[in-house]
């Protein structure tokens, strides 16, 4: 891969974006890339919008993805996907968890989804939270499910073997099996 691969992760504080970021960073490293990522802690975490950036390739300077440069926007929540869409370029693909967390004065779920569908970008709207809740009884691993999905559908240039290795390297043993199950599930759907 000659060009740097740029990902913006978005969601709501508490959805597990940092763990997702750690697994993704590690997987890119296992795959043989140089990787840099940027995240925010503190005030921005308390149920507010959260955004993290990941870039991997042959040489990375800044961890931040410039406006219009994302290859993939991976959103854990649909309204946050829509919010992030202003930073998309023509090539940006969207992988969106079909999960809606309303708040005061927020537009309706239907409005958000229809606006997402109206975007000219490739969109994958996947019920990751629901699937993980139904099949694994844990919504929070929807992050890893989405990584599996992205890898399987060619939205992410990282192999399953690297993702598996990354989970083994990063996730505490207690939760390892659950995360591997979520990853496998992402390859099934």
């Amino acid at each position, binding site marked *: 891969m000659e060009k740097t691969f740029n990902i913006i992760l978005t969601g*709501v*504080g508490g959805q597990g974006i940092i763990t997702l*970021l*750690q697994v993704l*960073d*590690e997987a890119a*490293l296992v795959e043989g890339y*140089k*990787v*840099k*990522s*940027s*995240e*925010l*802690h*503190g*005030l*921005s*975490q*308390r*149920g*507010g*919008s959260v955004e993290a950036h990941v870039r991997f390739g042959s040489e*990375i*300077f*800044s*961890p*931040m993805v*410039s*406006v*219009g440069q994302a290859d993939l926007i991976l959103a854990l929540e649909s*309204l*946050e996907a*829509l*919010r992030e*869409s*202003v*930073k998309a*370029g023509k090539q940006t693909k969207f992988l969106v968890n079909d999960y809606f967390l309303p*708040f*005061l*004065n*927020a*537009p309706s779920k239907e409005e958000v989804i229809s606006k997402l569908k109206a975007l000219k970008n490739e969109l994958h709207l996947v019920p990751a939270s629901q699937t993980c809740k139904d099949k694994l009884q844990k919504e929070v691993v929807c992050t890893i499910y989405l990584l599996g999905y992205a890898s399987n559908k060619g939205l992410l240039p990282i192999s399953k073997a690297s993702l598996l290795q990354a989970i083994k390297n990063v996730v505490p043993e207690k939760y390892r099996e659950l995360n591997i199950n979520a990853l496998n599930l992402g390859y099934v759907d």
Partner: protein
Amino acid sequence: MKKILLGNEAVVRGALASGVAFVSGYPGCPSAEIGDEFARLASRAPRSLGEVGQIYVEWSVNEKTALEAAIGASFSGLKSLVNMKSFGINVCSDSLLPLAYTGTKAPMVIFIGDDPSCWSSAQSEQDSRGYAYLAKIPFIEPTNVQECYDFTKLGFEISEKFNVPVVLRVTTRVAHQRAEVDFDEERIMKQEVRGEFVPNKHQFSTMPPRTLEMKADLLKKLKKIESFAEKSKANLIVNKSTSSKIGVVASGAGYVNTLEALEIMGLNIPVLKLGFFYPLPKKKIIDFAKGKSKILVVEETDPYIEKAVKEILKDAQLKAIVYGKDVISEIGETNAEKVCVAISKITGKKFNVTKIKQLGLPRRIARLCEGCPYWNVLPVLKRIAPAGTIFGGDIGCNMMGALPPHDMYDYLFAMGAGLGISHGVKKSTSQKVISIMGDGTFFHSGIAPLINAVYNKSNPVVVILDNRITAMTGHQTNPGMGKTSMGQDTTELKIEDIVKACGVKNVKTIDNPNAPESMKELESTVKDFLDKEEVSVIIYKRICALLARRQQK
């Protein structure tokens, strides 16, 4: 070994590799992971201070006591690391300035986490580099995660060589960046921590006329450190071979954004990266500027380097035009696009800014967590306070009181400042004033304004939200918990006892486990206290919901 680390984790590794023995700090964003990681390492096998292979770690009650603890350690021969966020340096500055004069005995690195764009900082977009000039202390600034490791080691090296404290100034995008780091794990936890204080009044006491001698010594040291900086690899030039008439001088995140911008624009322009912010390598800057007609300075927020470069070039009679804040905003962090725009303005090379369309989506603002005990308090206060009541807020989780759905604070400043201001408002008006703060803030800087209010016959109603931990910054221990950061049992300081000892006569602690009952109690107490002629304090004691859930696991 090589591993992906967070910038702050790399600082921890760098300090360990340097043989750090004493770590103190006060949590904040973006610095808290440093103390947290050290606390985790130190509590893995809690032993008493003095045993071989153990690091002493503390969350101090504030940044001033943290620095002073490290000064004591340094004078006793222990290598120390002090960690805090931007505003922490304001709190500890009173002891920082004399420390520059006395110098350190054992090396000391002070980590300051600045937060351009105020991602997790309310009170100001502080550029702490200004303290370098004020305190005359070397400041070094890493640009990436590997440098977080390397520069921590460099900081200890400079401190050891010149007996000065060194500030490692890191910004959010570096501290909270992850990347692979090449680090040395061999020397971790192998040093002895028992120090010995060898009295040296001549060196450790600032007292005139000695103070002025110390100042002269410090100025001499700074000259030597400047020579060291001239030779240091921390300052380096990239794209040196090009004969471009244009050059960029950059620091911190501004440097990586410059490299990114040059790649985007397909330009090959030499860049001088400054790892040393203070003292600046003047000769290196002059050599770099020779033969150039234009110099762009890329630094985040305040134009310190820009002003210094202008002065240096003027003294050297070099004619290059220096650009900086005229082409990159002084507000907010830099990014590649902002640097592209700046370069475009200087070179005339076209750059199309990607327009961001506005969707008009409402902000998803941060809020109190589900089950947070503050939900029992803030709405009650807002509902029962008579119209016109003034509310003072403070730093910590209670800051959410400034946001919807509460929207109730009339002023919000710095740690402990809410009560200080409330007293002034109370003395100046006949309005009712309720001042709110958390337990962490009370211990940090809430006691002095309470004493001031009592002593000066003021009468605000103070509500202390005691959620049994310093929560906002990620759950750090405080003196109200009976536990040290290394997990040892210690004296549990009771807020009620302290408040009474400060002379407060109207004190009520509400810790009824039944939430609705506690809210009724709160309501009647506030009504009663609002009519008092002396200071009154309500302590609403209920554990942080996240902590409670964690304890159940």
